[in-house]
């Protein structure tokens, strides 16, 4: 090889220095974020890297993802090749030929083969961007046909071509053998027409082309979305080990700042997320708010946080933000966007590099509610009702027992009852959901379960407060609940609401309360399987049943099979699936406190889901969540699709408990 040491050495040194400086500037900005321990449970973290980064699990969840995986794996192999290239440019004697023959030959073959795969990969990627790009690649700040994307793809292609050119010419000169480099061998035959005396010039040309593109590419990385090459693997390592909606508690001390009103009030991992985003748009493609035309786009939130961070100035140890985090324009997240989130977690489930979009929104809500008292006006009543009467509607707590007017229901007593049925606010007060509570109570009795309730003493779990950013009041409520549960010696809890379920099960763990919390679909599943619950007849009267995964049961808690098993056992056939099901399920529109707000922007989320259901022509929509029940009942009325009824899973089962002759 023919590098000119005098030119190459300083060029390499300057490139590496500039690259290091760029990286340092970026990482110094990330360090501006708030501390958060993301180092515990190393085994799970390493598994995360193996599964999501090296294994490309989420990347390949979509059909074209394989193409990225091929380019990525080729990149890993070629890291070695390019390392050798840069070093042997300085010291020609230091090269892989020093390795034992078979290993060297294997590497030669590997480099040759994966270079071809990488070349094919970037050509396909460019073709996709040009001719069959999915809609979700487009957004306000970038597009499928962005110059940046083609610059990156073009650079990679050029690197591969230079590689083949260099080795082809070397083979043509007889300095290398084509035996282990079939693709370069092919290239050498293309160079057969080149006069021998010009081959050395070609070698030099391709060598310098490869070197220059490589060094420019390296230095372009930290300033582009391609930064993810450096940050995606750490990002997977530092993933959240909590459930997506269980976000860190805040400590309420005087002089504290609560939530994130400026970019440096976000955690460092939130900032790392910004540099890990590849702008693939998958979160955007699954976000119920984005799909229904609301101003929220999870990828834009991550982008704006990154832009905001970059606009600030960092001198010594003090960081001064360049613009408000919450506001208008690029680099700020609008209040409308912040309040549009249903905290359904679809964005987080879609992100190939495990970016946490939704928690950032909640952190900004915490700031707006707690520091500014700025929120949609509908929430004022909600917050006051929650604090004053411990339920969203502000109904008298004494009414919590009205649902069982005609039944014999016992209060929970640790000495005589096994389970607490945590009825929940909807189950206690919502006229439609009260039917579900009654159905569930009948099921529990039919199965001989020992259960009781808290009655007038029951408090709201505080789910909506927490998702809406009113952490202060949630904190008070959680402490009251934890004290109540401890005092009553409650250990096993049945809930009929995925929001109560997740709050009691995951959020209260942060308060030291470890409960065995069972969603009614799980309990009914186990009762049917064990034979403790026997139906009087197979449920046929509800016709074809489609099952909808609630976000807080499915995506947030991985409960997918129990409700399906229940429907299959009760009706004799598996439920019909929505097109978007399991972890791809689509929100009803009521999570994240959206239940209590008007939906004034864009089209309605519940209608989007009902329209999807209508495609399968079901007779019954089966849900497992009071919010979904309300949203779907409303959506069906709006679309005048009265041929469909909405039932909770407990009601489907209770149908089978009716005597046969009725």
């Amino acid at each position, binding site marked *: 090889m023919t590098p000119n040491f005098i030119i190459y050495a300083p060029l390499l040194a300057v490139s590496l220095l500039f690259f290091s400086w760029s990286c340092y500037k970026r990482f110094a900005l990330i360090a501006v974020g708030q501390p958060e321990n993301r180092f515990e449970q190393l085994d799970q973290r390493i598994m995360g890297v193996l599964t999501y980064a090296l294994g490309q699990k989420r990347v390949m969840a979509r059909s074209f993802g394989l193409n990225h995986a091929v380019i990525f794996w080729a990149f890993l192999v070629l890291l070695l090749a390019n390392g050798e290239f840069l070093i042997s440019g300085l010291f020609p004697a230091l090269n892989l030929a020093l390795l034992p023959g078979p290993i060297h030959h294997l590497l030669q073959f590997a480099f040759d083969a994966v270079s071809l795969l990488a070349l094919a990969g970037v050509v396909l990627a460019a073709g996709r961007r040009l001719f069959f790009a999915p809609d979700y690649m487009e957004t306000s700040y970038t597009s499928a046909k962005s110059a940046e994307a083609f610059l990156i793809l073009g650079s990679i292609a050029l690197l591969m071509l230079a590689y083949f050119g260099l080795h082809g010419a070397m083979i043509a000169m007889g300095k290398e053998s084509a035996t282990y480099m079939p693709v370069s061998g092919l290239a050498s035959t293309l160079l057969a027409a080149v006069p021998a005396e010009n081959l050395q010039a070609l070698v030099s040309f391709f060598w310098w082309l490869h070197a220059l593109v490589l060094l420019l590419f390296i230095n372009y990385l930290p300033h582009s979305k391609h930064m993810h090459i450096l940050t995606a693997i750490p990002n997977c390592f530092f993933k959240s080990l909590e459930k997506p909606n269980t976000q860190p508690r805040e400590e*309420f*001390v*005087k*002089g*504290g700042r*609560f939530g994130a009103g400026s970019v440096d009030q976000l955690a460092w991992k939130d900032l790392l997320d910004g540099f890990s985003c590849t702008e693939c748009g998958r979160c955007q493609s699954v976000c119920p708010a984005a799909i229904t035309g609301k101003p929220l786009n999870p990828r834009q939130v991550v982008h704006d946080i990154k832009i905001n961070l970059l606009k600030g100035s960092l001198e010594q140890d003090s960081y001064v933000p360049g613009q408000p985090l919450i506001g208008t324009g690029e680099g700020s997240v609008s209040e409308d966007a912040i309040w549009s989130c249903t905290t359904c977690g679809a964005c987080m489930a879609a992100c190939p590099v495990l970016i946490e979009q939704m928690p950032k929104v909640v952190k900004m809500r915490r700031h707006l*509610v*707690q*520091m*500014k*008292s700025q*929120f949609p*006006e509908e929430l*004022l009543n909600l*917050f*006051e009702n929650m604090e*004053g*009467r411990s339920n969203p509607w*502000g*109904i*008298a*707590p*004494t009414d919590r027992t009205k649902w069982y007017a005609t039944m014999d229901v016992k209060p929970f007593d640790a000495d005589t009852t096994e389970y607490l049925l945590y009825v929940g606010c909807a189950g206690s007060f919502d006229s439609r959901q009260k039917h579900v509570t009654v159905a569930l109570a009948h099921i529990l009795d039919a199965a001989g379960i020992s259960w009781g309730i808290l009655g007038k003493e029951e408090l709201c779990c505080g789910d909506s407060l927490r998702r809406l950013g009113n952490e*202060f009041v949630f904190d008070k409520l959680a402490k009251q609940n934890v004290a109540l549960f401890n005092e009553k010696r409650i250990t096993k809890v049945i809930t009929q609401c995925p929001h109560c379920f997740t709050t009691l099960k995951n959020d209260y763990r942060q308060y030291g309360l470890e409960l065995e919390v069972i969603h009614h679909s799980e309990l009914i599943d186990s009762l049917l399987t064990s034979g403790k619950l026997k139906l009087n007849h197979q449920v046929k009267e509800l016709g074809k049943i489609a099952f909808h995964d609630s976000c807080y049961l499915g995506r947030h808690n991985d409960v997918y099979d129990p409700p399906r098993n229940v429907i299959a056992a009760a009706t004799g056939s598996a439920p019909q699936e929505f097109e978007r099901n399991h972890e791809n399920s689509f929100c009803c529109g009521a999570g994240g406190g959206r239940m209590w707000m008007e939906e004034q922007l864009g089209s309605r989320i519940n209608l989007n889901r009902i329209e999807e259901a209508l495609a399968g022509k079901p007779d019954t929509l089966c849900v497992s969540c009071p919010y979904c029940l309300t949203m779907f009942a409303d959506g069906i009325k709006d679309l005048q699709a009265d041929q469909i009824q909405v039932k909770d899973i407990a009601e489907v089962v209770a149908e089978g408990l009716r005597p046969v002759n009725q």
Partner: protein
Amino acid sequence: MLIVVCIKQVPDTTQVQIDPVTNTLVREGIPFIANPYDTHALEEALRLKDQFGMRVVAVSMGPPNAEATLRKALAVGADEAILLSDRVFGGADTLATSNVLSAAIKKLNEQEEVGLVLCGKQTIDGDTAQVGPGIATRNGYSQLTLVDRVDQVDLAGKKIRVRRKLEGRHEIVEAPMPAMLTVVRELNRPRYPTVPLRLESEDREVKVWNNEALKLDVNSIGLKGSPTWVSRIFSPEREKGEIVGDGLHDPKGTSRLLIEKLLSKDLLPV
């Protein structure tokens, strides 16, 4: 200049039930809240403070636990909170209550000029709407009841112009200050306290004034000073309603019938 806001701690009446045997309110376990109308009075005072820089003093007469309600007033931005609490104040009707509140406001006026006194239009437990006017009369203030809009405050000219919400009409009234206003809910939307203010309010002082501070004749306050007393509380029997038309078979005709009926009884605004 001071704005004094009178706040009463009341039982959360949505949770109050009447004991069918004794005909008294079942108060056990019922949470106390700030009288909702009073929170609108406080909000208006805070808005005037934001605009003109007056100081807002929240005053409440009640048992020691009424301190919680005053602390909430501090949490939304009141500058000072004074609890008028003494056993001799207990058992007061509206007259005795106005005597105590009027005296406290006079005492405040000795330290700093009181420009406005704001009260809710009535409390949700007693519903008499007499205490605000009682204060105005005793202290010789202009009396502006049922205010749903404050149009103008002229501090130099000591004048205030408000809109009063009356049945079926509004009235715009200008009056000299000091003035006592009672307010309705339409006046404003009370603010929600920020967490830093809430945390700070936990340590702030709620002053307690007893009768040694006010030096009122014990015959004019508390039970002794109350010429009225409650003889019986009961839920009135509800008169039987009527079923209008046949909504099941003729929804349109029935709606029309219902609207005509309501119009004839003057129950719908036209």
